[in-house]
């Protein structure tokens, strides 16, 4: 991280002679990007003469040799300069720094300086995440933006969910991404992380309203790198990482599994469901046999006997397989990026290529990504016309494996099953086990199925200065993305599971989004009044089509053979498509008076094809004001420690239109047949001829009821913020409080069943409120001669509340749908039974409320309504999964050529539903599966202190019900990143090198969690792809 630094360089032009008296001195003030800085105050200390620079950054002032000029500009320390004899035409350059208030922030169609912002905007320090090898820049932002939460598992290409300021709507809560000015709803998985110049997050409505109907969940603006004037540069970044998991469940081994089985049977016989008719636990589930003392009151297991073979045919030798070890691996991740750029006064260009190869920690998973980017711009007519383009191409290859099945199976597959049979076939379940497939087989038999993804995304623009400060810009962007996926399903036998059929299939799709933007901007300065005007128009059209087909009866089970033409039977084809369009007009006026008083007004009008003719258009207004108190004399004079202080308030409305494209129409579809193994058929084909096969007659299915009155859902948000800098901006920070009210939320609620198919209808019908606080604080400074430190932290929290839902749909949300509902509570509320503990004595069982299935060692549920019966009425709201607050802390230390950075991120509060507990605490909820080691510590009359219910094979007490037993504290603190870098520049002094450093880095190295959380990782509570530890060594080089 760069230290806070003001830098002045002086270029002295030779002057004619020496004058002792005052004379006219002229010059130019510009920033380090050679952009002229207007409004810089130039002051002669001795004579008190003053002037300001004009819009070209030029000034003239009278001064004599030996006098001192002070250049001051908001956000910078003043620059003092002694007038020398030769001083005549001065060139003052303010160098940019990290906490630079003059940093240019892209805020939507235009850009503003940070000091002028009146909205809640977070500028991500891209340098902090540059070397984090996540493959998706958004993943690396976890904890770095106040109010933003990123949900992702450890999969190389898995879905990433981003939430800004809590839950805004019941629909799509994904933020809108703006990449080089073009809106897109694709995330950043496909963007080369090294191409990113800046990331800005528009958190509040006053900033986001300019994006109107799609901005309710926030806006993330990405700008890619461009060539810089006067430079020629080659950047090369390389890194290699090793990935491994350290968060894993502890499944039982074969012996332990047998032991748990025995204990469950003994319990069932002694005080459980089999008490009336004991089943001798000398043998269990046909595999294990036991030597034990046959004393039920004090049972002792001498020995679990495991047979040599687990199947009658003697093809599977009893094993002790650790399935997770079998499916996982330590893997390598590589990332290379080469960027060449150059710039002159009239043209800039940048070309980059990137290669990213992530071999997953689950075998055969991975993501290989090739990126190329070409950004150029050219200026004509003395800079009045600028024509440019950005173009990126991405090609990704990803093996398509059922990873969630594989990771789950690795926990529940019986350890006694061998990976392979004695003759090299696949091991699999035998009698007494669940129908769970061998996860190693799933990996092996699917590894040939690779999805290829290609995307070309770019824009071309022309920016034309009609008269001074009046610009017209037109931009055309195209986004072409497509998938091609060809797959082969191999025949197999694994235990009693088998399928002799060979299938081949392929699917392709493509999506084209065309965007055309036109905008006028005008900057006007009248004395101390600065106006920026923007008026614009935008057309967006999106079209999506897909095709897929499959066939059976292939002669060879080989991916190189498995094309559809080789299929000989059951050839099926399907395809579909959708399209939608948006037409928008927008305008914005920014106003600043004397850098002190700031105001901004925005209006956007959006039309969407998704809405009914009556409500096609909507207006989205916003207004915000700012007051730079630090420019006031009473602050300057009385509180000199305050280097910057700004109060701001913003209000605005944004929308959400993310629903099905045709929601306003009542429609039928020709669905021939659509059954899947886990869902029934809703097609219309019928074998009316009774022939049993062949083409069938079919009809049409109603798919929806149209609502021509549909309109946007609207989020109205207010934000009160303060930005501050202390001690010459050594300390900087900001605090925001917001209130967000979303109304007319688009819902397609479950409906009265008598309507039949197509009774589903979208309408505007729910409201939700979020309120929150966000704070960030930074410190940067030198603490010793060569030691600088930078600390940046942020903390944020929010409360969500559902304020309105139609009564008819309340059953679809937590609560009982009538007396206890989610209204007035967070949408993420948890509702269920309260676990009081377990029954530990016969008297307790006898004296408690009537509870079907109660018994010794069983869970005791609380009789909340005190009616003496445990039933559905004994449920209540147990809490919410919303955390109290989330936080991040980034610390950088630089000492000479070394720099050390570590980043902690955490979540405090909130409940997590730990579904692992089904496996770790119960033998009855998945009786044919493997379980976790916690079952070995379950309650027995002899182990009476345990809080884990007694083992049983029959869940008579319905203990899988939604209860507080499964809700655990979700707090965690993670060391997300730690990096040690060494700057090699001193070594390469002789060579002309701009930057050279090597680093080692680790991600997700440490996790701290509540001792009450019994799973491996509260961040990733479901049976998802584990988040790996990534240790990296890398090199950055710039020539």
């Amino acid at each position, binding site marked *: 991280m760069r230290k806070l630094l003001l830098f002045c360089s002086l270029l002295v032009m030779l002057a004619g002679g020496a004058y002792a008296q005052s004379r006219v001195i002229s010059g130019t003030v510009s920033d380090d990007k050679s952009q002229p800085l207007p409004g810089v105050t130039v002051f002669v200390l001795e004579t008190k003469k003053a002037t300001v620079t004009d819009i070209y950054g030029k000034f003239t002032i009278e001064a004599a040799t030996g006098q001192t000029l002070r250049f001051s500009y908001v956000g910078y320390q003043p620059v003092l300069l002694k007038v020398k004899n030769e001083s005549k035409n001065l060139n003052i350059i303010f160098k940019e720094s990290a906490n630079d208030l003059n940093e240019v922030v892209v805020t939507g169609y235009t850009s503003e300086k940070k000091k002028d912002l009146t909205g809640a905007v977070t500028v991500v320090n891209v340098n902090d995440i540059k070397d984090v090898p996540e493959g998706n820049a958004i993943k690396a932002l976890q904890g770095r933006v106040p109010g933003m939460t990123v949900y992702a598992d450890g999969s190389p290409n898995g879905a990433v969910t981003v939430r800004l300021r809590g839950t805004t709507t019941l629909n799509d809560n994904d933020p809108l991404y703006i990449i080089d000015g073009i809106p897109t709803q694709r995330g950043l998985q496909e963007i080369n992380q090294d191409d990113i110049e800046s990331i800005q997050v528009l958190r509040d409505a006053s900033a986001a309203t300019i994006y109107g109907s799609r901005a309710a969940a926030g806006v993330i603006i990405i700008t890619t790198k461009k060539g810089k004037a006067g430079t020629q540069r080659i950047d090369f970044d390389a890194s290699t990482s090793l990935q491994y998991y350290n968060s894993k469940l502890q499944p039982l081994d074969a012996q332990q599994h047998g032991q748990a089985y025995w204990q469950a049977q003994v319990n069932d016989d002694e005080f459980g469901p089999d008490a009336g008719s004991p089943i001798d636990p000398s043998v269990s589930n046909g595999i294990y046999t036991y030597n034990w003392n046959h004393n039920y009151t004090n049972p002792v297991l001498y020995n679990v006997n495991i047979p040599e073979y687990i199947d009658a045919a003697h093809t599977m030798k009893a094993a002790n397989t650790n399935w997770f070890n079998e499916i996982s691996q330590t893997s390598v991740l590589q990332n290379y990026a080469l960027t060449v750029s150059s710039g002159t006064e009239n043209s800039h260009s940048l070309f980059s290529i990137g290669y990213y190869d992530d071999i997953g920690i689950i075998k055969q998973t991975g993501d290989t990504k090739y990126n190329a980017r070409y950004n150029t711009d050219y200026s004509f007519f003395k800079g009045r016309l600028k024509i440019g383009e950005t173009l990126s191409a991405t090609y990704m290859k990803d093996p398509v494996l059922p990873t969630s099945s594989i990771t789950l199976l690795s926990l529940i597959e019986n350890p006694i099953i061998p990976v392979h049979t004695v003759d090299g076939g696949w091991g699999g379940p035998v009698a007494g086990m669940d129908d769970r497939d061998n996860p190693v087989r799933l990996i092996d038999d699917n590894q040939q199925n690779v999805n290829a993804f290609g995307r070309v995304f770019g824009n071309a623009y022309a920016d034309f200065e009609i008269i001074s400060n009046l610009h017209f810009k037109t931009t055309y962007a195209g986004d072409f993305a497509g998938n091609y996926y060809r797959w082969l399903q191999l025949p197999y036998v694994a235990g009693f599971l088998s399928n002799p059929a060979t299938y081949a299939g392929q699917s392709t799709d493509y999506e084209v989004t065309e965007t055309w933007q036109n905008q006028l901007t005008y900057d006007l300065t009248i004395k101390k009044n600065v106006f920026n005007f923007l*008026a614009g128009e935008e057309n967006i059209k999106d079209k999506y089509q897909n095709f897929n087909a499959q066939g059976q009866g292939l002669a060879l089970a080989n991916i190189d053979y498995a094309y559809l033409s080789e299929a000989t039977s059951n050839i099926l084809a399907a395809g579909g498509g959708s399209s939608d369009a948006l037409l928008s007009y927008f305008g914005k006026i920014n106003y600043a008076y004397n850098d002190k008083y700031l105001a901004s007004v925005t209006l956007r009008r959006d039309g969407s094809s998704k809405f009914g003719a009556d409500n096609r258009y909507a207006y989205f207004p916003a207004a915000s004001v700012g007051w730079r108190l630090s420019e006031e004399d009473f602050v300057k004079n009385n509180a000199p420690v305050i280097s910057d202080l700004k109060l701001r308030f913003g209000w605005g409305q944004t929308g959400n239109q993310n629903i099905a494209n045709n929601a306003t129409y009542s429609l039928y579809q020709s669905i021939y047949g659509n059954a899947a193994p886990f869902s029934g058929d809703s097609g219309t084909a019928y074998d009316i001829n009774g022939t049993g096969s062949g083409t069938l007659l079919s009809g049409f299915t109603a798919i929806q009821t149209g609502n021509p009155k549909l309109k946007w859902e609207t989020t109205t948000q207010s934000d009160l913020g303060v930005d501050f800098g202390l001690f010459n901006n050594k300390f900087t920070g900001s605090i925001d409080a917001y209130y967000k009210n979303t109304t007319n939320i688009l819902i397609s609620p479950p409906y009265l069943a008598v309507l039949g198919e197509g009774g589903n209808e979208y309408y505007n019908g729910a409201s939700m409120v979020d309120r929150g606080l966000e704070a960030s604080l930074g410190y940067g400074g030198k603490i010793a001669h060569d030691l600088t430190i930078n600390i940046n932290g942020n903390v944020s929290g929010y409360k969500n509340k559902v304020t309105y839902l139609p009564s008819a749909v309340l059953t679809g949300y937590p609560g009982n749908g009538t007396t206890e509902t989610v209204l007035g509570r967070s949408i993420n509320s948890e509702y269920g039974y309260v676990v009081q503990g377990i029954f530990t004595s016969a008297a307790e069982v006898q004296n408690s409320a009537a509870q079907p299935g109660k018994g010794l060692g069983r869970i005791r549920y609380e009789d909340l309504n005190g009616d003496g019966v445990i039933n559905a009425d004994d449920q209540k709201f147990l809490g919410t999964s919303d955390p109290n607050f989330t936080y991040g802390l980034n610390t950088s230390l630089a000492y000479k050529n070394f720099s050390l950075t570590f980043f902690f991120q955490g979540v405090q509060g909130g409940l997590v539903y730990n579904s692992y507990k089904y496996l770790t605490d119960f033998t009855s909820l998945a009786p044919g599966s493997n379980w976790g080691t916690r079952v070995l510590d379950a309650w027995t009359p002899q182990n009476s202190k345990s809080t884990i219910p007694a083992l049983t094979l029959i869940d008579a007490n319905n203990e899988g019900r939604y209860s507080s037993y499964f809700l655990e504290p979700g707090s965690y603190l993670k060391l997300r990143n730690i990096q040690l870098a060494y700057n090699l520049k001193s070594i390469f002094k002789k060579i002309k090198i701009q930057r050279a450093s090597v680093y080692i880095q680790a991600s997700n190295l440490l996790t701290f969690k509540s001792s009450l959380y019994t799973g491996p990782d509260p961040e990733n509570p479901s049976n998802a792809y584990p988040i790996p530890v990534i240790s990296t060594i890398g090199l950055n080089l710039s020539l």
Partner: protein
Amino acid sequence: MPILFRLYQPSVLICHYKNSKTMKNLKYIMAFMLCIITASCKKYLDTTPQGVISSADLTSASNTDAMVIAAYSKLGEDYYYYPYAGMWAYGSLRSGDAYKGGGGPGDVMEYNEYETFSLNNNTNTSSDQVWYQLYVGVARANTALTLVEGQSLANYPQKMEREGELRFLRGHFYFLLKILFNHIPWIDETLQKSQANYGAVSNVALTSDQLWTNIANDFKFAAANLPVTQTQVGRATKGAAQAYLAKTLLYQAYKQDDKNDVTSIDQTLLAQVNSNCDSVINSDKYTLDADFADNFLPQDGNSSESVFSIQYSKNDGTPLGRVDFGHCLDYPMNVQYGCCGFHVPSDNLVNSFKTDANGLPEFTTFNDTDVVATGNYQTDTFDPRLDHTAAIPGHPYKYQTGLIYDASWARDPQTYGPLLSMKETVAYTDPSFTRFEPFMSSSKDWEVIRYADVLLMKAEALIQTGQEQAALPLINMVRQRAMNSTALLVQANGKPTSNYHMDIYRPGVNCTWTNAYAWQALMFERRLEFAMEGYRFFDLVRWGIAADYLNSYFAVEKTRTPHLAGAVFTKNRDEYLPISQNQLNFSKGVYKQNPGW
């Protein structure tokens, strides 16, 4: 690409700038921009829905006919979570004939709630699903009826026949709703479809008896307008409508009060049951299949015993085939099959196949000893239908002498014992067998009403009207066929699979055929003949004996299997499923909950 783009390309603007350096020309440029920015682009947002059709496009004769097929299609669209074709979850699991099976009580817990009754509740999502799915059937029939009624006879000569078919289908869906939920909203094609119109119809707007009359009227219309024979065998026929009408009237005849207690039996309706059964019998179109097995073998679909069957198919252009998804969990856990061991015959049911020395059922003593516990099927004697119905360790599975059923093929034998159901399954080598991992099923047709049912419905009507003598030959026809059905029940060595000994009722020889005895015989015969076919529970409710019968069953059966430990049938409540809380909520108070819930 927007049209505007072609008109006002940026290059045009550049040219203008080149040629005009005065402020005057600037006006044009400004006008251009204004034009772009404010251009009326109404059409830009008119995107056409892709790949769909509007209701206006359905009114052609061919599309109307297609919508009739769509209504038929719903017959076989059940799924293991709402098996309304095979009805096993509703009629078998709740009848004392079967256990849920599968991987313990938590595996499809909703059915454990059904089986134990005490755990059942109004948030059981399977109940909500089956309600919805059956109303989808009603809605498809109503939609097609509206279209058919809108056609002229000239343009659509099959109009009356199709109307008959659709009312038959609607009658079928309503019949199922009625026996499951009792109080249901009646919606027909005369009510224009809208949220408001449909939402105003209460489930208690009509009495139970009025609902039966409406259902009967649909079948009456169908019987009057349908041909005796259809060239497309999947379509409903006159005989099917008459048989279903008889079935409806039979249920209607047992009058229930508002606490579900049977208070009287309507003799007039029973006479109509009798006459409608006669119409079917006298049509000479139907006979009992020679072998009981023929009803449960795929090659004999649409046989002469089939009065109305649901047509399934495979290799038909749909992704998985339109197969019997409702029974897809009912196959063994072995390498030939692989999933999921649901629908397990109870010990009580297996014991009921025992015969006495005369070859007759042991009405009262059959359950005193448990043959399942002993596993010995040679000492006692049995009705051959046992080995058509239940998969038993050591016996050939589904008539395959090379595939001996093993106790290890059961999913969770410690909870549910070693047995499985067989009527719905097929041999894994059969062409109708199909896999869709992790499940499997077949395209074997499923008989909703078979001729044996017509015979026994008539016998029931006769006995209840004091004509037990006339009922005797009907019951004996069914028994005689069962007696004859041993050809396939042999082991690899050619010996009979179990020790079969069975006879017809011979008054004065092996029994005394009084009305009371005949009633016992009829009730028992229905159980043996239709075991595991999904309607047993509804017989018990119709006869008004469900509470006593099931609580006696639980008293003994819970000592044999741990999962029934808490099972209790609550009289005046459990005769019907509760109306789902969802539907009560959606109806905003228009629907009323069933008694007792």
